[in-house]
Protein backbone atom coordinates (compact mmCIF):
# COMPACT_ATOMS: atom_id res chain seq x y z
CA UNK A 1 0.00 0.00 0.00
CA UNK A 2 0.98 3.61 -0.51
CA UNK A 3 3.17 5.02 2.27
CA UNK A 4 1.82 8.51 1.78
CA UNK A 5 -1.88 9.10 1.15
CA UNK A 6 -3.39 12.41 0.14
CA UNK A 7 -7.06 13.26 0.45
CA UNK A 8 -9.16 14.24 -1.24
CA UNK A 9 -7.93 13.29 -4.71
CA UNK A 10 -9.74 16.28 -6.16
CA UNK A 11 -11.60 19.25 -4.79
CA UNK A 12 -13.85 21.85 -6.38
CA UNK A 13 -14.61 24.92 -4.29
CA UNK A 14 -16.31 28.24 -4.80
CA UNK A 15 -14.05 31.26 -4.71
CA UNK A 16 -13.86 32.66 -1.20
CA UNK A 17 -14.41 29.32 0.53
CA UNK A 18 -11.93 27.67 2.86
CA UNK A 19 -10.54 24.22 2.20
CA UNK A 20 -8.25 21.59 3.72
CA UNK A 21 -6.04 18.98 2.08
CA UNK A 22 -4.64 16.12 4.11
CA UNK A 23 -1.50 14.06 3.84
CA UNK A 24 -1.24 10.90 5.95
CA UNK A 25 1.83 8.76 6.40
CA UNK A 26 2.00 5.14 7.46
CA UNK A 27 5.33 5.86 9.17
CA UNK A 28 6.76 8.63 11.29
CA UNK A 29 8.04 11.51 9.22
CA UNK A 30 11.38 13.24 9.50
CA UNK A 31 10.07 16.10 7.41
CA UNK A 32 7.08 16.98 5.30
CA UNK A 33 7.19 19.19 2.22
CA UNK A 34 4.26 20.82 0.45
CA UNK A 35 4.43 21.72 -3.22
CA UNK A 36 2.04 23.21 -5.74
CA UNK A 37 2.02 22.27 -9.42
CA UNK A 38 0.20 23.84 -12.32
CA UNK A 39 -0.61 21.33 -15.07
CA UNK A 40 2.41 20.74 -17.30
CA UNK A 41 4.74 22.76 -15.09
CA UNK A 42 7.27 22.11 -12.38
CA UNK A 43 6.64 21.93 -8.66
CA UNK A 44 6.71 25.11 -6.64
CA UNK A 45 7.88 24.76 -3.05
CA UNK A 46 5.38 26.04 -0.51
CA UNK A 47 6.48 24.99 2.97
CA UNK A 48 8.48 22.44 4.92
CA UNK A 49 7.53 21.11 8.34
CA UNK A 50 9.86 19.19 10.56
CA UNK A 51 8.78 19.34 14.17
CA UNK A 52 5.72 17.71 15.70
CA UNK A 53 3.00 20.30 16.20
CA UNK A 54 4.69 22.75 13.86
CA UNK A 55 2.56 25.20 11.91
CA UNK A 56 3.64 27.55 9.13
CA UNK A 57 1.76 30.12 7.12
CA UNK A 58 2.38 31.93 3.88
CA UNK A 59 -0.21 34.41 2.74
CA UNK A 60 -3.51 32.50 2.91
CA UNK A 61 -2.01 29.02 3.12
CA UNK A 62 -1.32 27.31 6.45
CA UNK A 63 0.32 23.93 6.89
CA UNK A 64 0.43 21.89 10.06
CA UNK A 65 2.22 18.74 11.15
CA UNK A 66 0.61 16.71 13.94
CA UNK A 67 2.39 15.87 17.18
CA UNK A 68 2.95 12.26 16.14
CA UNK A 69 4.48 13.44 12.86
CA UNK A 70 2.32 11.19 10.74
CA UNK A 71 -0.22 13.59 9.37
CA UNK A 72 -0.10 17.02 7.81
CA UNK A 73 -2.83 19.34 6.64
CA UNK A 74 -2.78 22.24 4.22
CA UNK A 75 -5.46 24.83 4.78
CA UNK A 76 -6.35 27.59 2.34
CA UNK A 77 -8.41 30.49 3.60
CA UNK A 78 -10.70 32.46 1.28
CA UNK A 79 -9.63 30.56 -1.83
CA UNK A 80 -8.93 32.39 -5.07
CA UNK A 81 -8.64 31.17 -8.67
CA UNK A 82 -4.86 31.58 -8.34
CA UNK A 83 -4.88 28.77 -5.76
CA UNK A 84 -6.02 26.26 -8.39
CA UNK A 85 -3.56 23.51 -9.21
CA UNK A 86 -2.26 20.21 -7.90
CA UNK A 87 -0.96 20.11 -4.34
CA UNK A 88 1.59 17.44 -3.50
CA UNK A 89 3.06 16.45 -0.21
CA UNK A 90 6.53 14.93 -0.06
CA UNK A 91 7.78 12.96 2.93
CA UNK A 92 11.27 12.51 4.27
CA UNK A 93 11.69 9.20 6.09
CA UNK A 94 14.57 7.90 8.10
CA UNK A 95 15.95 4.77 6.53
CA UNK A 96 14.44 5.50 3.15
CA UNK A 97 17.66 6.96 1.83
CA UNK A 98 18.86 10.40 2.82
CA UNK A 99 18.22 11.93 -0.57
CA UNK A 100 14.81 10.55 -1.38
CA UNK A 101 11.44 12.15 -0.90
CA UNK A 102 8.33 10.01 -1.16
CA UNK A 103 5.46 11.89 -2.77
CA UNK A 104 1.73 11.52 -2.51
CA UNK A 105 -0.32 11.32 -5.69
CA UNK A 106 -1.56 14.85 -5.32
CA UNK A 107 -4.80 16.71 -4.76
CA UNK A 108 -6.26 18.57 -7.71
CA UNK A 109 -7.86 21.82 -6.61
CA UNK A 110 -10.27 23.77 -8.82
CA UNK A 111 -11.59 27.14 -7.69
CA UNK A 112 -14.76 28.37 -9.36
CA UNK A 113 -15.05 32.17 -9.68
Amino acid at each position, binding site marked *: SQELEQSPQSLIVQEGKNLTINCTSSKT*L*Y*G*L*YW*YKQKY*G*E*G*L*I*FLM*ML*QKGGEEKSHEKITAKLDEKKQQSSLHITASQPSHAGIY*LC*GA*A*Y*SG*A*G*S*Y*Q*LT*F*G*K*GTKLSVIP
Partner: protein
Amino acid sequence: SQTIHQWPATLVQPVGSPLSLECTVEGTSNPNLYWYRQAAGRGLQLLFYSVGIGQISSEVPQNLSASRPQDRQFILSSKKLLLSDSGFYLCAWSLGLAGLGTDTQYFGPGTRLTVL
Protein backbone atom coordinates in the same frame (compact mmCIF):
# COMPACT_ATOMS: atom_id res chain seq x y z
CA SER B 1 19.31 33.59 -6.69
CA GLN B 2 19.26 30.02 -7.88
CA THR B 3 17.50 28.92 -11.05
CA ILE B 4 17.07 25.55 -12.69
CA HIS B 5 16.58 25.00 -16.40
CA GLN B 6 15.40 22.00 -18.36
CA TRP B 7 15.25 21.41 -22.07
CA PRO B 8 13.61 20.63 -24.23
CA ALA B 9 10.20 21.55 -22.79
CA THR B 10 8.41 18.98 -24.92
CA LEU B 11 9.62 16.07 -26.99
CA VAL B 12 7.93 13.53 -29.23
CA GLN B 13 10.10 10.56 -30.11
CA PRO B 14 9.53 7.23 -31.89
CA VAL B 15 10.00 3.94 -30.09
CA GLY B 16 13.59 2.79 -30.33
CA SER B 17 15.09 6.24 -30.76
CA PRO B 18 17.68 7.70 -28.34
CA LEU B 19 16.96 10.31 -25.70
CA SER B 20 18.89 13.11 -24.08
CA LEU B 21 17.30 15.51 -21.59
CA GLU B 22 19.38 18.22 -20.00
CA CYS B 23 19.13 20.02 -16.69
CA THR B 24 21.32 22.87 -15.50
CA VAL B 25 21.36 24.79 -12.25
CA GLU B 26 22.60 28.35 -11.81
CA GLY B 27 23.51 30.33 -8.74
CA THR B 28 24.77 27.53 -6.50
CA SER B 29 27.72 25.19 -6.20
CA ASN B 30 27.91 21.45 -5.58
CA PRO B 31 24.17 20.85 -5.51
CA ASN B 32 22.56 17.45 -5.15
CA LEU B 33 20.70 16.78 -8.38
CA TYR B 34 17.69 14.57 -9.01
CA TRP B 35 15.68 13.18 -11.92
CA TYR B 36 12.02 12.34 -11.31
CA ARG B 37 9.34 10.96 -13.60
CA GLN B 38 5.70 11.88 -13.14
CA ALA B 39 3.29 9.50 -14.84
CA ALA B 40 -0.46 9.90 -14.84
CA GLY B 41 -2.01 8.30 -11.77
CA ARG B 42 1.33 7.15 -10.42
CA GLY B 43 2.72 10.20 -8.69
CA LEU B 44 6.30 11.34 -8.66
CA GLN B 45 9.00 8.65 -8.89
CA LEU B 46 12.67 9.28 -8.18
CA LEU B 47 14.82 7.87 -10.98
CA PHE B 48 18.36 9.03 -10.23
CA TYR B 49 20.21 11.31 -7.89
CA SER B 50 23.75 12.67 -7.87
CA VAL B 51 25.81 14.15 -5.04
CA GLY B 52 28.74 15.16 -7.23
CA ILE B 53 30.37 15.04 -10.64
CA GLY B 54 30.36 11.52 -12.01
CA GLN B 55 28.44 10.16 -9.00
CA ILE B 56 25.08 8.67 -9.97
CA SER B 57 22.70 6.58 -7.89
CA SER B 58 19.79 4.78 -9.49
CA GLU B 59 16.60 4.19 -7.56
CA VAL B 60 14.78 1.89 -9.96
CA PRO B 61 15.92 -0.48 -12.71
CA GLN B 62 14.89 0.89 -16.06
CA ASN B 63 15.70 1.74 -19.62
CA LEU B 64 17.24 5.07 -18.66
CA SER B 65 20.64 6.30 -17.50
CA ALA B 66 21.95 9.53 -16.04
CA SER B 67 25.23 11.38 -16.13
CA ARG B 68 26.69 14.43 -14.44
CA PRO B 69 29.56 15.73 -16.56
CA GLN B 70 29.77 19.08 -14.77
CA ASP B 71 28.92 20.32 -11.29
CA ARG B 72 25.65 21.94 -12.29
CA GLN B 73 24.66 19.79 -15.26
CA PHE B 74 22.58 16.62 -15.10
CA ILE B 75 21.64 14.58 -18.17
CA LEU B 76 19.03 11.87 -18.57
CA SER B 77 19.57 9.47 -21.47
CA SER B 78 18.31 6.40 -23.17
CA LYS B 79 19.73 4.39 -26.05
CA LYS B 80 16.35 3.05 -27.16
CA LEU B 81 13.08 4.52 -25.94
CA LEU B 82 10.11 2.37 -24.96
CA LEU B 83 6.46 3.36 -24.98
CA SER B 84 6.53 3.11 -21.19
CA ASP B 85 9.14 5.88 -21.04
CA SER B 86 6.49 8.47 -21.83
CA GLY B 87 5.86 10.90 -19.02
CA PHE B 88 6.76 14.22 -17.47
CA TYR B 89 10.40 14.38 -16.41
CA LEU B 90 11.42 16.73 -13.65
CA CYS B 91 14.87 17.73 -12.54
CA ALA B 92 15.42 19.02 -9.02
CA TRP B 93 18.26 20.29 -6.87
CA SER B 94 19.00 20.62 -3.19
CA LEU B 95 21.96 21.64 -1.06
CA GLY B 96 21.41 19.24 1.79
CA LEU B 97 19.79 15.98 2.65
CA ALA B 98 16.12 16.44 1.82
CA GLY B 99 15.45 12.88 2.91
CA LEU B 100 16.30 13.84 6.47
CA GLY B 101 13.92 16.75 6.46
CA THR B 102 16.69 19.32 6.64
CA ASP B 103 16.69 20.76 3.18
CA THR B 104 14.36 21.48 0.32
CA GLN B 105 14.31 20.15 -3.23
CA TYR B 106 13.62 22.78 -5.87
CA PHE B 107 12.19 21.64 -9.16
CA GLY B 108 12.70 22.66 -12.76
CA PRO B 109 9.90 23.34 -15.28
CA GLY B 110 9.92 19.77 -16.60
CA THR B 111 10.07 18.02 -19.98
CA ARG B 112 6.99 16.35 -21.45
CA LEU B 113 8.14 13.22 -23.31
CA THR B 114 5.79 11.33 -25.61
CA VAL B 115 7.03 8.10 -27.14
CA LEU B 116 5.01 6.93 -30.15
